[in-house]
């Protein structure tokens, strides 16, 4: 494993695997995350994985920075970079267009496509969850077709409902909670990405693959009753 160590503030140690968005780098971050999740070193407060880095907050009462560096180096020696990697594929139903996706027409016009072509391109992609951040359960996804890219809205909406699926530049994403935001909204999913009362509050994890599929407005509204277990 190739990496560099840096302090982040006075209680963070940042492990840097690279400086690009790259599935191979993501996989290394993922390996270290899984190892930390399983082993939970006593000196660790928590870990925060990102695109190409993983930061560990540590107990300054236990270790100096120099000491924690030694711990991290020996810990990383235990990780086999070639260890097999099980990737989860998560299917996300989306009701495209209409009131739930008010900007679908804009995205189509902007790219000189029909609405159906946009939906087809969005549902045929395979998206890698690089990291979770910005808001609880918000996935940073890679792998969207550049043919459906669209600029952010000039003035952000004050309230974007939870479950909204949007496009901003070359990225697509899902808003897990109601928040303000400037993304072009093309649809909405009835699946709850973040539910604090669930044992695993966050549906998606870094390293997951996402596939979107299209559902009707009626299916969207019936989802809650049919899939109670999935959401609660």
């Amino acid at each position, binding site marked *: 494993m190739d990496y560099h160590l840096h302090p982040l*503030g*006075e209680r*963070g140690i*940042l492990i840097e695997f690279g400086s690009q968005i790259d599935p191979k780098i993501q996989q290394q971050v993922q390996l270290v995350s899984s190892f930390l999740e399983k082993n939970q070193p006593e000196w660790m407060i928590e870990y925060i994985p*990102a695109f190409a880095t993983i930061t560990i*907050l540590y107990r300054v009462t236990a270790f100096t*920075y120099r000491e924690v560096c030694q711990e991290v180096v020996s810990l990383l020696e235990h990780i086999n970079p070639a260890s097999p990697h099980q990737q989860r594929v998560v299917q996300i139903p989306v009701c495209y267009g209409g009131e739930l996706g008010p900007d679908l027409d804009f995205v189509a016009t902007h790219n000189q496509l029909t609405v159906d072509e946009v939906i087809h391109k969005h549902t045929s992609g395979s998206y890698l969850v690089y990291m979770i951040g910005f808001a*609880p359960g918000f996935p940073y996804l890679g792998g969207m077709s550049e043919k459906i890219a669209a600029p952010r809205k000039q003035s952000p909406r004050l309230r974007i409902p939870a479950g909204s699926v949007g496009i901003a530049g070359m990225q697509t994403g899902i808003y897990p*909670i109601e928040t303000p935001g400037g993304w072009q909204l093309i649809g909405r999913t009835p699946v709850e990405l973040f539910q604090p009362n669930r044992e695993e509050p966050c549906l998606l994890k870094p390293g997951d693959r996402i596939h979107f599929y299209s559902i009707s407005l009626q299916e969207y509204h019936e989802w809650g009753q049919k899939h109670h277990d999935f959401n609660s």
Partner: protein
Amino acid sequence: MISILKPGLLTTIQDLGRYGYQKDGVVVGGAMDTYSHRVANILVGNDENAPTIEMTLIGATIQFSRDSLIAITGGNLSPTIDNKRLPMWRPILIRKNQILRFGECIDGCRSYLSLAGGIRIPKVLGSASTYAHAKMGGWHGRPLEAGDQIPLGDLQELSKKIMEEVHSEGNPKWSVPPRIATPFIRVIKGREFQAFTRESQDLLFKSEFQITPASDRMGYRLSGPALLLKDKKEMLSEAVDFGTIQVTSDGKPVILLADRQTTGGYPKIAHVISADLPILAQMKPGDRIRFREVALEEAQALLREQERYFSILKRLIELKFR
């Protein structure tokens, strides 16, 4: 139980924060001034992490439905009972049906009210802290409102002893010292410090910055000279922490605070050291800041010293009310 008669400007229930879920994008939150929060709890015999009530600039009016042991720390928002000023930084007995009022802000920005026995609310993801943005934690995931009736928890042995003594001897004449404000806020260099121009690196330590009104529990936006990068640089989002100073594209520094997002994509010029965050948390829009650099080792030593202070204070309270 306590009843909120007037909520004040921004009154929330906070503990020491929600750790362990930043990997899921969940903000840590928690008390802005953890020093005052911890002292307030220690003074009434609570665990340091017990939820307290954080009030901002304009405090609340609160009625007590039972005799209660409380402590008020942090910024001075002129607390009174029956029109008499209430001393801060010591345990105080409040009688059944008395009304605790906070008035104008005399110094600081945030006041902490601890209640012996704590507040009886469920923890969400391991913490009682209010995270209003996601409508979770605290009291129904929101700031307190008039009419809220908040149940209190059961007193631990130490709290009972303190309460008995204050009951028979009267409120103590002693108090513990507040965290004294310093003329400088100490920082350590950030990961992208070297990416700033030489002039901007100097400006960080030589100029005065002012906290703008666009500041809140998420972060303090500062005005002052623009801090510029040598070269425009695209950065990938990565972890940030309480006290991280990011510089936005227009050259303005933002100090990330309790309700910060878990990751950030702006260059980090510096980090405010933990020992000085409580001083920063008591500053308000309009206040001026100067930064001074310390080494990482010194910042960590100061943090350990502060931890030692808390264990000594706890021990002293235990001995005094044994």
